[in-house]
Structure formats: structure tokens, C-alpha cells
């Protein structure tokens, strides 16, 4: 089977300092994978490499068998949707207008949204459960609500791979669990490959069958939560007493 994402011997450097060193990672279609690691470990850099936003110093990234360096932005956007980190909006923009941006890679380049695009927007709004926010200015929403609207935008993008960078960072506990359940649902019902950077090891362990631990630019562990998040590794990588992180393993 062709991997949804295949990373081989990837090194990414910022101003000569490696942020990711010699990483190998293969993510099969339909997998649900959490990237965890301390701040500055290289999680976001790895995501940016997967999305084709950084030029690797060495190594390759492939999406569904195609080297990402051979794909243009439109081709990448049809294969991979990224939930952006809460951007500001320069103009008053309604919730459905934000969600409709997810159709940019699919809509008619001149005429814009086609009926199928509008249906996808409505379906994404339903799926993420932001119907009660319709008609509101996205800039007036709470951070948690905005996060959900951006998630709906990425769902409307209808790509086989969904990438999220800290999707729960502004959410309260209930919304965190809701987002996790939604990711599980998208993954299990639609076979969407889900790759999420998470800070919360508990959420990662509970909702993700595969956890990749990144430490100082290298992949320190890769496997089911019980193997990847051992007490010893939590102490080594995160520098905290594992007793403080109670994982429901």
C-alpha cells in the first residue's frame, strides 16, 4: 500500500540549525497519529514539511506516492487539509464565508462556488456542529468557537489527509473532548488520515492509536501509546515526573 505520507531521511534546518534531523516516518492511509514532544522539539516543523511549506535540507516528503516537491500548492491542498492556527481576519467575515474558504482548491477558478461546493460547506458545518454560529461575524466568536469554525473549513476542504497543530489549545475540557471525538469520527467513518500535534499526552494516549514522540528534532518513539509514552520516556523527553501525567492506558 502507498503511504499517505512518507518521510525519508528528512532534515529541516532554520538558519543552519537543524529543527528536524534525519527523520523517517510512514503514515498509512486511514491512520490516526498524534505528534507529541516538548516545545521546540520540531513538531510544528515536521507538520510544515508535510504540508510542503519548508524546503528540506535533505531527504524527501511524499504524499500518496508523489514527492511533495513535484506538487503545486493546489495539488497539495487537494490531498491535505491543514487547520490553521487562529489567524486574525482583516474584514468582517461570516462563519459560512470562512468555512467556504475550504472550497478554494475545488471551486471554479473564475465563477467560484458550485452547487457541490455549497453542499460540502453545508455538510462540513453540520459535521463539526457549528450550525448555531451561522450568520455571525467570525471575529466576534470566542477562541474555542473560532477553532471549531476553522476545523469546519478544513473538513470542507475534503482532503484525504487532515493535519492539525494544537487543535485543542483554546478549548475547554468539553470542547477538547468533542474535537477529539470528531477527529475519531472523521477518521473511522470517512477514512480520513488524521495527523495532529498535541500537547496533552492524555488526549493523545486516549484518542490516538499511534503516537510519535519528537525530541530535539528526532523521532524518539513511535508506536501505540502504551509503548511510546512509557514513564521512563516521559521523564526523559518531557523532564517531568511521570506520576504527574496520568495516562488512561
Amino acid at each position, binding site marked *: 500500500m502507498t503511504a499517505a505520507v512518507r518521510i525519508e531521511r528528512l532534515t529541516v534546518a532554520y538558519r543552519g540549525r537543524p529543527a528536524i534531523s534525519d527523520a523517517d516516518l510512514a503514515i498509512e492511509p486511514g491512520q490516526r497519529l498524534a505528534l507529541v514532544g516538548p516545545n521546540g522539539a520540531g513538531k510544528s516543523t515536521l507538520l510544515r514539511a508535510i*504540508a*510542503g*511549506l519548508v524546503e528540506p535540507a535533505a531527504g524527501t516528503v511524499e504524499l500518496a506516492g508523489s514527492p511533495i516537491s513535484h506538487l*503545486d*500548492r*493546489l495539488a*497539495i*491542498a*487537494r490531498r*491535505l*487539509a*491543514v487547520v*490553521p492556527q487562529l*489567524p*486574525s*481576519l*482583516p*474584514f*468582517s*467575515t*461570516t462563519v*459560512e*464565508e*470562512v468555512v*467556504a*474558504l*475550504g472550497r*478554494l*482548491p475545488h*471551486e471554479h*477558478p*473564475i*465563477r*467560484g*462556488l458550485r452547487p457541490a461546493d*455549497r*453542499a460540502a*460547506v*453545508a455538510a462540513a*458545518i*453540520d*459535521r463539526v*456542529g457549528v*450550525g*448555531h454560529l*451561522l*450568520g455571525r*461575524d467570525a*471575529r*466576534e466568536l470566542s477562541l474555542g468557537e473560532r477553532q471549531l469554525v476553522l476545523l469546519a473549513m478544513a473538513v470542507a*476542504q475534503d482532503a484525504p489527509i487532515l493535519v492539525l497543530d494544537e487543535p485543542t489549545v483554546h478549548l475547554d475540557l468539553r470542547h477538547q473532548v*468533542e474535537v477529539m*471525538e*470528531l477527529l475519531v469520527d472523521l477518521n473511522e467513518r470517512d477514512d480520513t488520515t488524521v495527523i495532529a500535534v498535541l500537547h496533552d499526552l492524555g488526549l493523545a494516549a486516549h484518542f490516538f492509536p499511534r503516537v510519535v514522540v519528537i525530541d530535539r528534532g528526532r523521532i524518539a518513539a513511535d508506536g501505540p501509546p502504551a509503548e511510546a509514552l512509557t514513564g521512563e520516556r516521559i521523564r526523559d523527553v518531557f523532564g517531568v515526573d511521570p506520576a504527574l501525567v496520568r495516562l488512561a492506558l
Partner: protein
Amino acid sequence: MTAAVAAPVHARARSSLARRPLALALVGLAALALALVAGVAAGSVAIPPGETIAVLAHRLFGLDLGIPWTSAEDTIVWDLRFPRVLTAMTVGAGLAVAGATFQGVLRNPLADPYVLGTASGAALGAAVAVVLHVPALILDFGLLHALAFAGALGAVWLVYRLSRVGGHGQMTSLLLTGYAVGSLLAAGLSMAMFMSGAQLRVIFSYLLGGFEAASWVRFATALPLIAIASGLIAIRARSLNGFLLGEEAASHLGIDVRRERAILMGLASLATAASVAVSGLIGFVGLVAPHVVRLAVGPNARLVVPLAALFGATLMVAADLAARLLGEIPVGVVTAVIGAPFFLALLRRTRAGYEL
């Protein structure tokens, strides 16, 4: 979670996405037609609307409406006022489209067509032409128009090149470079004005802008540049929409950010340069028109760009008409009197709602 929202959501989403742009376009077209006829009919010699329309119908379509007119009226309508209102219309549309583009790409609601130094470049070019005082005219165009056009594009090119030296933080770098280069060019302008002596008034009237020197040849030269640049921007509305959530999000949505940013800003600069070359520096239309349109139809560039062109055209024709009725005062004064209070209101909104 998914069961909570039912069927009505779809209908609401659709109606809200549309926001009645078609009705607005029809109203805009009617207002523009009215402004054009009023702009031709009114002036120091008032010509009744019936005769104005009769001259235009005869000249444009060979129609005889059965209303007689004099040859003086024919000259005033056809040779003086019609090219003037058409130039105002084209420049208004071009500045509005350029404003919408710069606001969209820079994600800055206060950006206007002159943000990248176009204005200071054009002004310096025009001032240098006045100081050099070469009275030759080629096809109705003097050194002033040529240097204004070259100065506008040259300033943008310089700003763009210099801003790329720094590397990261490109947008901030671009705006700050624009400010720095603009200040330098403004110093050059002051020097040229200082040296211009008796010609100061010529530079001054260029800085305030106006359409009193409009002619068919100038209109015919500016029109294709502005129309092509605006048309190419309009068909790149998808890219412009992509910038709404920022450059990184635009990349994720399939936009080649570097290329599209360069193309859109280049086209907007071209429309601006062509506008300032024929009419001088006229402020506020490029700032105001896109915002008014966005208030009505939302931020979708597919609607904003054409409707802003329509609104900017109408606004400019009306402002030029007002300027003539007030005794040929500079049109830039009229647009400033309309635009500055609007700008202040916008600033108040910025504190409340805009995020820069």
C-alpha cells in the same frame, strides 16, 4: 453533535453567502449611468439632459432622438465633457480595484492604492518634469505624464526589491520599506517644488489631481491599462480570497502565495500608475470604495472587485461633477472632504472590530 443542526442550515448558509450582489450591481449601474449623464450635462455651461443624451446617442449609436442641439453643445458634450467623465469613471474604477487588491493582499483595511509608494513616485516624477520644463507633447502626453507613470512604477519596483533583502517578515518589511522609500521620495518632491519657482502651481495642481485636462487620446491610453489590470485582478479573485486568513493559510488552501502576491500587487500598481499619470493624485476613492462594498456584500473578492470598480467609478464621476459645480476646485479636495470623515469612522471601527 451532528444531529443538533437540521435542514434549515443549508438554506440559511446559501442565502447568506449570496447577500444580494446582483441587485446591488444593478443599482450601481443605474447610479453610474445617472452620474455620467449628469456629469456631461452639468458644468459652467449647463446643457439640458435631453440634449446631452441626444448628442451622445447620435455620436455613440448614430441614433436621432428628434431633439435638436447646437454645434457648440456638440463640442462641449463630445470633445470636452464626455472624455472627462469617462476618464473619471475609469480612474475611479482603477483606484477602487487597486485599493481592494492592496487591502486584500496586505490584509490591511487601511491600505490604499498608494501604499507601496506609487503616489510619492508619481509626484516626484511629475515634479521633475515640471522643473525640467520640456514642453513637447506626444499624443497629448507630456513629459509630466510619462515621468509620473515611470515614477509610480519605479517606486513600487524599488520598494519591492528593497523589501526582499531582509528575508523574513516579508509583509511588515514591505510596508516599512514603502514608508521609508516614500519619505525619501517626498524629500525629493519638496526639493523639486523648491526649485520649480513660478511652476510651483503646476506641481501643486498635479498633487491635488483632477480631470480638467482630460482628452480622448489620454482616455484611450489609460483605459486599456486600467481595464486589463482590473480584469486580470478580477479573475484572480480566488487568490485574493485565499489571503483572507493570512499567507500561511492561503498556502494550505492551494494558493502559490509568492507568485500570486507579486502578480496581484504588480497589477494593482499598474492600474494605480496609469490612473495617477492621467489624473494626478486623487486620494480616498481607493480606500473608501472597497470598504463600502464589503459592508454590503462581505469580503468575497469575486463580488468586491467588480462592485468596488462600479462604486469607485460612480464616486469619482460624482466627485468630479461636484468639483466643477463648486467652481473647478481640485477633485482631490472633494474626495478628501468625503473620504476623510469616512476614514476617521473606519479608524473608530478599527479599534472596535478590525484586527490589523
